[in-house]
């Protein structure tokens, strides 16, 4: 069974929700990423999402744009990314999800890219610019390599379309909580609450629902869990924290912040 699916089952039996943490590979540098991952693991994150930077990240807000830009400037590339994943795999058994843009897979060939990433230890893939209509070759490669394809839905996705998306999704379904790019800070909107409610009804337990984009603190995380999220996805908030830290403090501070977030996913 897939590592991601297993993780959700395990959490369910413990009456917990999932904390999914995103960091950009190679930001602030390779060792910094490793320290951050150690912090995430220590702090109790359930799934780790690793961003492989793309030159034109059009679904990302300023924080991830900047982190991607710096990581690329410092020379992150596919082979360095894969060796980083291998290092991480030696330290943790948590599910690892790769988030990047379609072109980096297309350029290598979907099958080659996905099989390389799988061998290094990646379990699932998120491509924010991959629409299901274009996903034929991608999904073939996903199945062949026994990986999970995590698709995104948005508050304006129609019920009919959500069903179609669910039918090709595995691992979890990524519900984008806001109209906007990653890291958008906004007070909680009614439409987000409605979207969680409606999606839950439509999905009917077939796949866990992760809510992300713009969640930055335990209070918001707690709120969305109360409204029905199976997982909380946090990215920009971690990167904002890393931005301010000297290398030596990354691990402990990230662990601390992770603990505060993980706490709200454990039902009292």
């Amino acid at each position, binding site marked *: 069974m897939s590592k991601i699916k297993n993780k959700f089952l395990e959490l369910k039996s413990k009456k917990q929700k999932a904390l999914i943490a995103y960091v950009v590979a190679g930001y602030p540098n390779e060792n910094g990423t490793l320290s951050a991952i150690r912090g995430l693991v220590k702090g109790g994150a359930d799934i780790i999402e690793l961003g492989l930077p793309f030159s*034109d990240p059009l679904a990302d807000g300023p924080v991830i744009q900047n982190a991607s830009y710096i990581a690329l400037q410092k020379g992150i590339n596919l082979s360095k990314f894969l060796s980083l994943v291998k290092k991480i795999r030696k330290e943790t058994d948590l599910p690892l999800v790769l988030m990047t843009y379609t072109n980096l897979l297309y350029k290598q060939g979907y099958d080659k890219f996905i099989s390389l990433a799988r061998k290094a230890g990646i379990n699932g893939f998120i491509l924010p610019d991959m629409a299901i209509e274009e996903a034929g070759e991608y999904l073939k490669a996903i199945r062949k390599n026994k990986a999970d394809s995590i698709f995104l839905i948005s508050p304006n996705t129609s019920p009919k379309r959500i069903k179609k998306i669910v039918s090709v999704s595995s691992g979890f379904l990524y519900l984008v909580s806001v109209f906007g790019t990653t890291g958008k800070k906004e007070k909680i909107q009614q439409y987000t609450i409605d979207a969680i409610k409606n999606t839950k009804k439509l999905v009917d337990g077939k796949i866990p629902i992760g809510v992300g984009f713009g969640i930055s603190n335990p209070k918001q995380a707690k709120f969305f869990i109360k409204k029905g999220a199976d997982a909380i996805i946090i990215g920009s908030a971690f990167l904002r924290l890393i931005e301010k830290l000297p290398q030596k403090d990354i691990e402990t501070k990230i662990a601390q912040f992770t603990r505060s977030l993980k706490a709200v996913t454990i039902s009292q």
Partner: protein
Amino acid sequence: MKIKYPKAGKFGEFGGRYIPETLVPAVEELEEAYLKFKNDKDFKNELDYYLREYAGRPTPLYFAKNLTEKIGGAKIYLKREDLLHGGAHKINNTLGQALLAKKMKKKRIIAETGAGQHGVATAMACAALGLPSEIYMGYKDTQRQKLNVFRMNLLGSSVHPVMEGTQTLKNAINEAIRDWITNVKTTYYLLGSAVGPHPYPVMVRDFQSVIGNEIKSQMKEIEKKIPDAVIACVGGGSNAIGTFYPLLDEDTEMFGIEAGGEGIETDHHSATLNAGSKGVLHGMLTYLLQDREGQILDTHSIAAGLDYPGVGPEHSYLKDNKRVKYDSVSDQNAIDAFLTLAKYEGIIPALESSHAVAYAIKIARKFSKSNSIVITLSGRGDKDVEVVENYLNQNVKNKK
């Protein structure tokens, strides 16, 4: 060869819709509206009215007698898009899309711009139709093209400098897409070339096809036949596809000319179809300038309007099935053509269009005197005189 309306948005394998999920309802709404209005009589009449009375269509097809004599080959005609309001073909597209946005009851228009030509044309169309517009422009471009920023402001647009990455056109498109994701319900994204997710490439082509349609009927009138060859410059590819599309089924040779910059063997050029490889950017599968891993490369051209690492998907299709020959012209040759046309015909062409002129100068002699070649003169060069002056001064210095 002629794909009237691309099924599932595809020109062969190219095009499609590689977009964040939030934009799916928006492009579906756009496609629905476009299909509804493109054959609507009132819409067509209204657009024709603005193209005629506001933009100045039809544009002349001018026989460039002096240039023809100087070169000594085919007769050279100039399709004078440079005479349009705003000084470029861009207004054909912005009037069409702004009118569509109005029919869709959109309250806010956003657009990207590189050099500022599409931004200015958007600001004009929006002012004429009473729509508020905001323009994204790379910070570097705002500095290089200060006058166009001021022009857009005069026309009632606000210009947002984009600080991301290389701070040029591709970043401006990224940022416009991000704005669109954020304000998807209220906002219309008025894309400036035949690029982006379906239906933009086909819609922009259709709005620009007025160029090729006029060439066809004007040539029939003047020469009693269709042109033997047409030549247009290719940035995103809108003036070129507008020139080519109506003639695709005819026996006309076609040349799309990209920016060769300092040479396509260097990494300072924007010759996407000549030197690129297939990939996915800005919602479409098409040829791109990218590295081995798929990171998009920085591009260069003396003509800011050609300075883009992608190209419209229909051009990728026409390249692969060899209907159109895509070639490139260097900065230096474009400058030479700019000077030649100014001197011999009294017409200062945009540096973008100068690439097409340079290519015509190169190949006209291979044709016989009974042949006719049409160059689409996509814009006028007033915006470029300073760039050309600096380039010439620099060369004088280098020679010393």
